[in-house]
């Protein structure tokens, strides 16, 4: 009898980009729900507007580039970029913030570099950095987490804040934040835990004094720890579905955790410990959803470890000594820049060839 001999490739990709992106979106649900629970309706508006803008921008870019539109829109990459950007910015930031960010992410960072699969930088993070350095005030106005400060503005007040910057009774976002703060005993400016910590340490307080604030009940800051835990859950789902490999999250969290541990041993009074670094800010979102972007990350497994460890170390350095409280976006962009070099030096050995050959 004769066997059917198939020609190569013998290894088939089980899933299309569309399937992968759907699973990523599904995996983000717990994190988004946690953010909704702690920070109110804002996130829903941000997501809606971000996705709409992303699809519109993507369509316009595809028309301008004379590419097939349906196929590209159905692979959900634009939606994933929009969702990543929407969950990164403060829930009640004015509507034009997310529009500017999404248009830049899709139009400039993605399509000017050649569209899906060709972008050097992570589009969502490049958009985030554009917003952060252009509009620092709006981009750092986070609401206090909900069970710190009582009820958030309701659906209609949030909607009004989102579009007009004022609630129906005429309070501005800052006034709303102040009202929420005054319900707390402390009169410090409300900020994210990392932001607060940075300010307090800069004012000369020790770590334990800075942590002596109601928002630090729990392991890493009220609200934020649960948001991070939810993203961790979603990330583990991605791992289980084999959408991502363990290398990038492990390298990322390992390097960040190791640096945090070293810091806590060397200077326990001024450097926050491992729990704060791993469970506040965008650590888990970054490790599982942002750094794992298959296009802008390194390719080989060894490369992924190096790439992710670089991000982890950079996050620690920027968080500790840099000017901004959180650093995932900057670290990811800097590591994206290093990817071509990392890929060059971590090429896997071709079967039957030695590594030291002149083939490179």
């Amino acid at each position: 009898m004769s066997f059917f001999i198939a020609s190569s490739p013998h290894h088939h990709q089980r899933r299309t980009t569309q399937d992968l992106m759907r699973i990523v979106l599904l995996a983000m649900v717990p994190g988004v729900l946690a953010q909704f629970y702690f920070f109110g309706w804002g996130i829903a508006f941000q997501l809606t507007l971000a996705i709409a803008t992303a699809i519109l921008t993507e369509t316009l870019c595809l028309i301008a580039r004379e590419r097939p539109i349906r196929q590209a829109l159905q692979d959900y990459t634009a939606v994933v970029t929009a969702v990543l950007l929407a969950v990164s910015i403060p829930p009640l930031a004015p509507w034009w913030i997310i529009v500017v960010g999404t248009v830049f992410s899709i139009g400039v960072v993605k399509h000017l570099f050649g569209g899906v699969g060709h972008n050097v930088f992570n589009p969502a993070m490049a958009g985030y950095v554009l917003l952060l350095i252009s509009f620092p005030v709006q981009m750092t106005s986070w609401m206090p987490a909900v069970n710190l400060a009582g009820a958030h503005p309701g659906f209609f007040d949030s909607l009004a804040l989102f579009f007009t910057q004022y609630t129906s009774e005429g309070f501005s976002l800052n006034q709303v934040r102040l009202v929420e703060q005054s319900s707390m005993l402390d009169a410090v400016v409300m900020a994210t835990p990392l932001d607060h910590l940075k300010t307090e340490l800069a004012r000369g307080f020790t770590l334990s004094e800075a942590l002596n604030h109601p928002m630090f009940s729990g392991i890493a800051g009220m609200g934020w720890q649960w948001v991070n835990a939810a993203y961790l859950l979603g990330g583990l789902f991605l791992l289980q579905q084999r959408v991502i490999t363990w290398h990038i999250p492990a390298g990322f969290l390992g390097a960040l955790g190791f640096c945090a541990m070293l810091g806590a041993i060397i200077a326990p009074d001024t450097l926050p410990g491992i729990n704060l670094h791993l469970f506040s800010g965008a650590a888990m979102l970054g490790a599982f959803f942002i750094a794992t972007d298959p296009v802008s990350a390194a390719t080989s497994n060894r490369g992924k470890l190096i790439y992710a460890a670089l991000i982890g170390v950079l996050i620690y350095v920027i968080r500790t000594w840099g000017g901004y409280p959180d650093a995932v976006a900057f670290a990811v962009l800097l590591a994206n820049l290093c990817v071509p070099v990392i890929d060059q030096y971590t090429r896997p050995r071709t079967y039957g060839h030695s590594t030291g050959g002149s083939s490179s």
Partner: protein
Amino acid sequence: MSDVQEYKELTKNGLWENNPALVQLLGLCPLLAVTGTVTNALGLGLATLLVLVGSNVTVSLVRQWVPNEIRIPVFVIVIATFVTLVELTMNAFTYGLYMALGIFIPLIVTNCAIIGRAEAYASKNPWHKAAYDGFVMGLGFALVLVALGALREVLGQGTLLDGAELLLGQWATSLRIELIQFDYPLLLAVLPPGAFIGMGFLIALKNVIDRYRKEKAAQAPVEKAQRARVTAQ
């Protein structure tokens, strides 16, 4: 090639075909660093223009006596002399702008566009042609500076020619144009990344225009052939 034709060629090269900023990508350091406003851009553009004309003429005049082996140091000394002249002049007459541009005035010495012209053109051509070449090249460079400066100033501040009095004297205060009132200006445009992104868009725009003209030129001969028949009368 007749002289007129050569001057035409020089003009076209300096302003468009071989523009020092858009095509040769020379002198990017000052180009990106000082184009936050039109005034700064114009100031540095004019300073570079003066230096370029002066150095081109001088290099062209001494080209017979400079041995090939030491031409680069000689060029650099010539350029540095003119930069010092311009720097002292700006210090005396436009002090505010002198302070605003800071280190980037002395750094004109290291602007590759200038030594590039000295090496590629002035050291091989008579002085009047070298002077004209320096003028159009400097003009091309200055125009790109001003364009980028305008782009960044409008996006970052919503104004044009803000602070023109630093360069042109007190009367120029009225030149300031307020185009848009931003509640939240796009800070990025004023910061260094904005310079890189804006420059990228300017180069892209030039390439688009070039492609458009090329396509048009490719269609043009057909029309010409039709118009050629005029012998009937």
